[in-house]
């Protein structure tokens, strides 16, 4: 059972229901009283709460390593054959010098120019999902809309069967949202994703196409051909990194619009403001917290870290630090100066950030275009998921007629 938290500075719990639902006051207090708090829970960790610490530590890649970036690591040994299925999830789970080549392999297919090409497909998916949601007897914008978009878009980009998208959702939730209980479920899902891509890689090797899996297979790591295990591990990451995250951001943005009708009305009148509003939603409701593993002893901001310690890079808290943002607790959809770091900072900057922004822009624009004004449906409740990735998991809406 969950043990409630009395002391956030020495015993925090990122899976605490209160933290998942409303972490903002907790960060506010910690920034002043104990900016790098500690906990023994979930294997033990420290976490950042200020913008400066998050930025600095993200750049100290030789001390704070990315080899295990999950906020809750499993103590259970790897259960799959790494020679076949690959190791980790490059580039996110690598440090220099392996990181650069693994990252450059995937960047071209996710560049701003490449992402323009995925827009028509994304629009088509969003339109048909909105139509379906509009016809249903009740609308859950998390389950019926936000959640459905990223898995289909990534399936399209990777060049795999769109019908597999529902399976992707289930796997990714098992990997990223099972923080607390079920380690075996998480391992099973992780292995299932690897086996799925092992099969895809085998198929694509036989006849390369123009999809992203084929691009990875025909690419190179600074001159060295890409092996199947490397390609498989990279695909595993593209699936895991792009689904929960983007769906959470789309969901949080819709939650905001449903909760603040004035902002919704303003965006309906002025669509040009949408890209600015999206950056503000990314800042104020940043979904992703990442972890680092300490490799060398270091004293940082009053904490003595020793090798093996875990540190959480709290991008969401960094984006609400009053030293970095004016009036950070107020969500202003016309905030023009917005140096947020929702996509991380430094060498691991989200490789999918151009894609995620396009998915957010497309999905919100089409929802606003096709549907009348909406509010939260008071007959049902909003639920939030959190831990590594925070966002609404149920978002019941009521549309005005």
């Amino acid at each position, binding site marked *: 059972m969950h043990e409630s938290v009395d002391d956030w500075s020495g015993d925090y719990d990122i899976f605490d229901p209160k933290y998942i639902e409303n972490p903002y006051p907790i960060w506010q207090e910690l920034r002043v009283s104990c900016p790098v708090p500690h906990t023994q829970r979930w294997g033990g960790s420290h976490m950042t709460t200020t913008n400066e610490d998050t930025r600095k530590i993200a750049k100290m890649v030789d001390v704070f390593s990315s080899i295990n970036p999950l906020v809750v690591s499993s103590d259970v040994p790897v259960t799959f054959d790494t020679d076949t299925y690959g190791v980790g999830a490059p580039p996110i789970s690598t440090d220099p010098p392996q990181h650069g080549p693994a990252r450059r392999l995937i*960047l071209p297919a996710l560049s701003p120019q490449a992402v323009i090409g995925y827009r028509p497909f994304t629009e088509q998916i969003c339109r048909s999902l909105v139509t379906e949601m509009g016809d249903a007897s009740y609308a859950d914008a998390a389950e019926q809309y936000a959640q459905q978009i990223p898995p289909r878009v990534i399936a399209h980009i990777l060049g795999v069967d769109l019908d597999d998208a529902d399976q992707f959702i289930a796997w990714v939730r098992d990997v990223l949202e099972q923080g607390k209980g079920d380690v075996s479920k998480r391992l099973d899902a992780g292995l299932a994703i690897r086996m799925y891509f092992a099969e895809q890689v085998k198929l694509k090797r036989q006849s390369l196409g123009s999809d992203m899996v084929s691009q990875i297979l025909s690419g190179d790591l600074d001159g060295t051909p890409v092996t199947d295990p490397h390609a498989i591990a990279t695909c595993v990451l593209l699936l895991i990194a792009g689904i929960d995250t983007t769906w959470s951001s789309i969901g949080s943005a819709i939650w905001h619009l449903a909760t603040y009708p004035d902002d919704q009305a303003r965006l309906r009148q002025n669509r040009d403001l949408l890209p600015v509003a999206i950056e503000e939603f990314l800042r104020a409701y940043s979904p992703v917290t990442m972890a680092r593993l300490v490799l060398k002893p270091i004293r940082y901001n009053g904490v003595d870290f020793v090798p093996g310690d875990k540190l959480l890079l709290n991008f969401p808290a960094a984006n609400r630090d009053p030293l970095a943002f004016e009036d950070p607790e107020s969500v202003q959809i016309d905030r023009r100066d917005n*140096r947020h770091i929702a*996509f991380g900072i430094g060498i691991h900057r989200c490789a999918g950030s*151009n894609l995620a922004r396009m998915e957010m822009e497309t999905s919100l624009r089409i929802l606003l275009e096709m549907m009348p004004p909406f509010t939260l449906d008071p007959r049902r409740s909003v639920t939030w998921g959190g831990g590594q990735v925070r966002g609404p998991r149920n978002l019941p809406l009521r549309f005005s007629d």
Partner: protein
Amino acid sequence: MKVKVDPTMCMGHARCVSLAPALFESDELGNAVVIGDGSVNSKWEEAVKLAVANCPEYAISMIE
């Protein structure tokens, strides 16, 4: 006034490319490249200031 991107600091967030497309474009990896010699005419001054203020990596600078 001219604008400059420090390629060792740019990590390809592409904020500049969306805020001031007349002055920045992305290379094949998504990192920013200044268009032409980076001269900023008064029409684009506001947009360039926004790019500077939104670049998460502090990679953009303006020289008078």
